[in-house]
């Protein structure tokens, strides 16, 4: 029997098919399920009403993140600080109760391991290469950075996975996004994914799972790959992945929930076999040259609205598509920008370094390198650094990064989603502008009327210390 050459995605898919219906819908086994407080309460309730159990609590991990304030969670006396917003408090209390009552491991808001669900998964070794990973959150694509097939699901699907450890799915098409060459000075993984989305468009990946290939991703750290994969969904792809390699294995080895001993060796051998076979084909191929990628950022309200920092606000009429012309004009009105304005002249009042896209240790190091020995501009109203997890925070403090940030005038916060979606108290006021390392620049995402420019951590720090969107390369030694 000759086996057909398969891509990484196809290999993972094939290994998880439990059953196939005549119309091609497959029942897919789910190896890892992450849950947080926003999309789970009604799923647990559904189980309770139907008198059902969680099939594999051992493959499920719960952690609160979206609603948590990033101010201290325990007071000086060691008592938990109550959460003022009653709806947030109710969702958090629901998870804290539901997870243990169904036998699911729950990481408490006050635990060192707490953090954004997509930071915690890989960090704990809960997320593994070759695994199918789901979470009621569209940025689950993130975990593809370690070579997992990971995607977001809705509440009714959360319930389905809790009860059956499976999902009904149709196989996606495959897209290769290849970036060859060497990234220039000051160009980060965030710039790479922004450039990719700028090229394929916000719906360019719809119906596809993306595999990121080429020397740029091979040379990229795991943190960087997680950043890239995270934003696959902003290009329309439900999932994105990077083939696991020695870097992946080095990152995972020794993590609390990663395989140990003989099983580790067995796992690594299997993970190596997952790489796309020579001769396998993708349904679509997109190629970028690393040399063409500059530090980048968004000007509008769609993640595809990308320009290099050296660029200007585009003229809506410069787009060929009439519907894009209209959308661009609406974006500019909302963003308070005029065509031809230099991106570097745009003043910001807020800076946010955080979110599941850019809140890992490397991200904080990159921001700190720019902030070191500088001060945030006097008119900056708020510059937040929100580590992705308690462990990232501890690591950063061990390296003295917190001091650098505090000395420069940044606030050093507790881990959570924070200003990424403004579900907690961290919001950008209406009409004000934020350089943000998060992943969505949608209307109102960071608060009603808030204006968001998506940037890398180093670019965010550069905006903070200059007071405007700035080319980080000019601040780098």
């Amino acid at each position: 029997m000759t086996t057909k050459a398969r891509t990484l995605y196809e290999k993972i898919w094939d290994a998880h098919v439990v059953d196939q219906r005549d119309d091609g819908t497959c029942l897919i086994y789910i190896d890892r399920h992450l849950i947080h407080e926003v999309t789970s309460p009604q799923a647990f309730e559904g189980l309770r009403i139907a008198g059902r159990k969680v099939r594999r609590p051992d493959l499920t991990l719960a952690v609160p993140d979206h609603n948590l304030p990033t101010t201290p969670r325990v007071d000086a006396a060691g008592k938990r600080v109550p959460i003022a917003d009653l709806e947030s408090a109710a969702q958090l209390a629901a998870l804290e109760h539901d997870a243990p009552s169904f036998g699911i491991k729950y990481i408490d808001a006050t635990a060192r391991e707490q953090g954004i669900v997509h930071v915690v998964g890989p960090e704990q070794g809960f997320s593994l290469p070759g695994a199918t990973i789901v979470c009621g959150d569209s940025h689950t694509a993130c975990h593809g950075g370690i070579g997992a097939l990971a995607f977001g699901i809705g509440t009714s699907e959360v319930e389905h996975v809790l009860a059956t450890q499976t999902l009904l799915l149709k196989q996606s098409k495959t897209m290769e996004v290849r970036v060859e060459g060497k990234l220039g000075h000051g160009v980060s993984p965030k710039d790479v994914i922004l450039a990719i989305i700028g090229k394929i468009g916000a719906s360019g990946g719809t119906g596809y799972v993306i595999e990121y290939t080429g020397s740029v991703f091979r040379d990229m750290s795991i943190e960087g790959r997680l950043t890239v994969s995270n934003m696959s969904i902003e290009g329309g792809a439900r999932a994105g992945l990077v083939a696991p390699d020695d870097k992946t294995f080095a990152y995972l080895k020794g993590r609390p929930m990663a395989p140990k001993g003989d099983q580790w060796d067995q796992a690594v051998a299997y993970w190596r076999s997952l790489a796309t076979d020579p001769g396998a084909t993708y349904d679509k191929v997109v190629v970028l040259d690393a040399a063409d990628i500059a530090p980048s950022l968004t000007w509008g309200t769609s993640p595809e609205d990308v320009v290099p920092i050296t660029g200007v606000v585009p003229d809506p009429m410069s787009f060929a598509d009439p519907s894009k012309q209209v959308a661009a004009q609406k974006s500019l009105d909302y963003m308070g920008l005029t065509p031809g304005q230099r991106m570097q002249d745009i003043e910001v009042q807020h800076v946010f370094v955080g979110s599941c896209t850019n809140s890992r240790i490397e991200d904080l190091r990159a921001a700190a390198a720019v902030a070191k020995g500088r001060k945030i501009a006097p008119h900056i109203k708020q510059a937040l650094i929100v580590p992705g997890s308690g462990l990232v925070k501890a690591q950063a403090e061990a390296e003295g990064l917190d001091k650098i940030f505090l000395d420069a005038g940044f606030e050093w916060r507790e881990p959570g989603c924070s200003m990424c979606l403004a579900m907690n108290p961290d919001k950008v006021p209406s009409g004000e502008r934020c350089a943000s390392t998060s992943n969505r620049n949608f209307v109102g995402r960071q608060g009603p009327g808030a204006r968001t420019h998506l940037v890398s951590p180093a670019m965010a720090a550069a905006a903070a210390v200059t007071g405007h969107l700035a080319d980080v390369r000019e601040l780098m030694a």
Partner: protein
Amino acid sequence: MKAVSKVEGRAYPFGLKNVDTDVIIPAPYLKTISRIGLGRGAFESVRAQPGNVFDDPEYAGAPIIIAGDNFGCGSSREHAAWALNDMGVEAVIAPSFSDIFSGNAFKNGIVTVVLPQEAIDRLMEVAKTDPINVDLENKVVTTPYQDRFEFEIDDFRRHCLINGLDEVGMTLAKADRITAHEQKLAQSQPWLVPTAV
């Protein structure tokens, strides 16, 4: 999901056309963490009117709603079905339903019965004084007055409703396949799924 082969009892003679899901459950109720309790917000704008059927003690706790054309149009919110569930409604009879709503109703064990307008007119009359019987086994709606209205319903949906099978339930019916997959995984990738159930 609760199995339902028959719904019998009083019916709200509602009759309104184009009732959208915003009417069934208004947006401010969507922030809840529970699908239980949404009944208190159900038909809020209708209930603001004096003499409405939902607050008439004559129909208190009725398991059936008789409605007009295009019931459940508008936003796709599953909360509409949750709200009906919560107020104890098990069947809605109307000349037509929005597709999304009937899908959501089905997922939540609510029978949607499509009957021609003449039948609806007759049922609206009967409902004011007497109970109505929806027989899913025999696909017929009857009244104490020898009325007999046969209806069509997708066989698959009918089967699921009668046997209390929702999507989760149907997947659970394949539990042996899932278990077999887990056993295979426990052999081939023991680090991933350490033990089979």
